[in-house]
């Protein structure tokens, strides 16, 4: 790790100010940033921790949806959404291990947009909106590709809003080493349509499998997925743990299982 300054502001305004320093970086739990810094692969001049900002913490009802502060830990989300949104609670409860869940936050996860992270799938399928210090961005426009988002320089994810579906399920098939999703699918059924969001599989990060959404919007059953061909494997990640074709196959299997489990 290189030397750096550390700030722990108490308000969003102070955080935004602190992030104006050159090479400053936002830190929201640090479950990706910390190992990166320890490996000396990142050398921020200043680390601005967001987790002491009260207005960015907690989970509350927000009309028909749920508002989750950006600095809310996975453990808190898992606990607080147990009744209001069980599928999201279950997603949060299965991220990493207890230490990761006690530190990692939803804002950090969506801002990082790891192609194998769990939250991007949950937020995208749940018609999520990413709230920042300056605007609201629909999840459809927010996740732009592997580790890429619509965030501007110094922009902070202050909250994530999701719509609660009629029913939903997150089916995760883990990569045996990291236990991140090798491929995972979040299926959410709303009164006016179904969303299917896939993480872990694509070279372009989280994506919606629209063919499955169309099929399931017409016929809400695992059989409806059976009739589809798996998405194209050539755009999928191919590595030590599986080929693109394998991941494409898993997209279909996990979608089917997610629907069956709803």
């Amino acid at each position, binding site marked *: 790790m290189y030397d750096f300054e550390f700030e722990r502001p108490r308000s969003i305004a102070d955080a935004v100010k602190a992030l104006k320093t050159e090479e400053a970086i936002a830190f929201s739990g640090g479950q990706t940033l910390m190992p990166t810094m320890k490996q000396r692969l990142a050398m921020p001049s200043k680390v601005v921790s967001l987790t002491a900002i009260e207005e960015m913490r907690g989970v509350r009802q927000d009309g028909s949806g749920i508002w989750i502060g950006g600095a809310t830990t996975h453990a808190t989300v898992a606990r607080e959404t147990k009744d209001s949104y069980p599928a999201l609670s279950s997603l949060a409860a299965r991220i990493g291990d207890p230490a990761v869940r006690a530190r990692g936050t939803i804002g950090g996860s969506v801002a990082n947009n790891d192609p194998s992270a769990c939250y991007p799938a949950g937020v995208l399928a749940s018609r999520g909106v990413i709230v920042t210090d300056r605007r609201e961005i629909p999840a459809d426009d927010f996740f732009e590709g592997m580790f890429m988002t619509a965030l501007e320089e110094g922009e902070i994810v202050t909250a994530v809003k999701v719509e609660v579906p009629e029913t939903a399920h997150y089916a995760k098939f883990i990569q045996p*080493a*990291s236990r991140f999703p090798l491929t995972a699918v979040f299926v959410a059924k709303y009164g006016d349509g179904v969303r299917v969001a896939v993480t872990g599989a694509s070279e372009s990060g989280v994506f919606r499998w629209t063919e499955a959404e169309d099929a399931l919007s017409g016929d809400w059953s695992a059989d409806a997925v059976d009739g589809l061909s798996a998405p194209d494997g050539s755009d999928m990640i*191919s*590595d030590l*743990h*599986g*080929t693109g074709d394998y991941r494409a196959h898993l997209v279909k299997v996990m979608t089917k299982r997610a629907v069956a489990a709803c």
Partner: protein
Amino acid sequence: MPKDGGIGASTKRREDVRFLSGTGQYTDDINLHGQAHAYFLRSDVAHGTINGIDTEAAEAMPGVLKVFTAKDFEGVGGVPCGWQVTDRFGEVMQEPKHPVLAEGRVRHVGDPIAVVVAETLAQARDAAEAIVPDISDLPAVVDLKAALEDGAQKVHEELKSNLCYDWGFVEDNRDAVDEAIRNAHHVTTLELRNNRLIANPMEPRVAVGDYNRANDEHTLYTTSQNPHVIRLLMGAFVLGIPEHKLRVVAPDVGGGFGAKIYHYAEEAFCTFAAKALGRPVKWTSSRSEAFMSDAHGRDHVTKIELALDKDNNFTALRTETYANMGAYLSTFAPSIPTWLHGTLMAGNYKTPLIYVNVKAVFTNTVPVDAYRGAGRPEATYQLERVVDQAARELGVSPIELRRQNFITEFPYATPVAVEYDTGDYHATMDKLLEMTDHAGFEARAAESKKNGKLRGFGLAHYIEACGIAPSNLVGQLGARAGLYESATVRVNATGSISVMTGSHSHGQGHETTFAQVISEMIGIDANQVDIIHGDTGRGPMGMGTYGSRSIAVGGSAMVRAAEKVINKAKKIAAHLMEASEGDIELKDGKFSVAGTDKEVAWGDVTLAAYVPHNYPLEDIEPGLEETAFYDPANFTYPSGAYGCEVEVDPETGKVEIVGFAAADDFGNVINPMIVEGQVHGGLAQGIGQALMENCAYDADGQLISASYMDYAMPRSSDLPMFKVDHSCVTPCTHNPLGVKGCGEAGAIGSPPAVVNAVLDALNRGGHKVAHIDMPTSPARVWAAMNKTPMAAE
């Protein structure tokens, strides 16, 4: 019932008190006054020519004491290899120099280029970034067979080729085996890979070098399984320090699994630099460094052929193996695919003709050496796979095919030069089938099918060879060391006992089990006995812990020393009781005179030895301390039957182990609970190899499983509840305790049992799959079911 604390008692491990309460003293806990810190700059390319290393800017950085490169080691020897193999043509192996720091070339990712020693680790690391190595890339040698092609890039320019040796065993059997296979009724052939592994002990390697100018003494604190061997190798071959001026201490060591047997360059560096700088020098490996600098394990590519007659008797076995040595020869590397592998190819079977060919190959990868089991897992895996496949091809029961070919008469001389002293393979097979409720398998398989899963049962029978010996034989085979063990039993005046053993405990529980043996022999409380190990300054010459040798060899040395102590104590007791020595008996800590009520306590005799007022000074010396060296007459041969039941998810290829049982014959057992723990650990590592672990390089020699993000270690939730039994006992016939060793068995017998179970499940499900290479990851199992090629590695 075993005596409390004696042989056979499940005494709780005394060392766990400090391990579990955070009071263990590991090498990284040692911080010496004035200590400086070393940081190794390692190659990030697999192969390249070093044109120069500019250290000027780094030398000027804050806190830097010195930047070392190969230039500083010109008068220093290479890191030695402890075993010289002779090939099938009578030539000795090719043995390149393994410099402490890379000389002229880097040969694997992780090869050390330079070392910064600075006041703090952060300063050393900062300065290392200012070093400018000028390296021109060379083509990387990664594939074992391509490495041996004509015109292949050489890893060592000064050698004839990348072939370390071409070994044949038994060479005189070669033609007869060829002919038997040509004329066989049936031949089953498999080509398989024994996947490369990284040991991953919980504690990474650490070295602290210290030098005392006043008396010219060096001390090295290191994470080693065998400090005496390090003293010998480093002192005699690398740095030229005589034993009496070099002390090596391996305090608490957090797991070894083989990777901490070897003498490593970092140990020599810290010892050397401490004298050069006049400061203690410490190096602690990061986990990332461990992946690219700890010796790796396994990595064999094998073709195996099993010939059978029309009655399904095994008639001949032929294997051809390419064994990866990595870039340099690690301490015992050449012996692993040869003498610890070829000699085990008979397994539990009376195959009359066997020929083993091994080509050891240099590549631009981390050196490969022994890892839990070392050669024996590789032998067992291929043999138990081919036997299973033969049963499938012939449509016979894999259990019956094994039983029919079991060795049943002992001693049994195999066609691969070893003689098994005892064993009862039918007994362990019977026990296994009982433990796994084999009779109920079909019902369970039907239940799985209802749930959309494919259930399979796989078994393996293994033979192990522990306590490699005797020394005169291993010397003929190329070992450059003896393979005895030593012990000093020091009885103190009040009767308590300190045992100095050359065996090293790094998780095995010797401090408990060795004390149990002494407690049993003398009849005193085990708490009166301390086991001291891991310090060349305290114990006699020792050979350390590896190859499941500690109780069989180290324990035997201790028994011999204790017998000497008891014999002397009996003389003293005879004097005290004015009786004849021949009438003295020792029981429950008391000496008595046979046929009388005369007795004298152990403590009174030991006190007399040190306060010899009433003492036969004219016949025996005062004091009560004896040393013994024990050189075994033969290996010991544990054996056992392992059974694995799996469920395969046909949609994802995921394998779940739903049952695992191990029926082992370890001979006599000192502490059943510790033996059980050893088997559990071995099984976890074997199942890890079979299902998950894979050390992979890409075509450029980059290590692509270089962290826990990609190297899959088994976790408790990946493993079933194990059923473990060691009630089948055929005691070893040639050591005093009748013990065989249990440390590696789990890792030897389990991989083929798992893979056999996976294949059984697939074949029962209608997938005609002959073999899947380990690890049988979901992607590989799915690919095998769907015939889709695997991603390039």
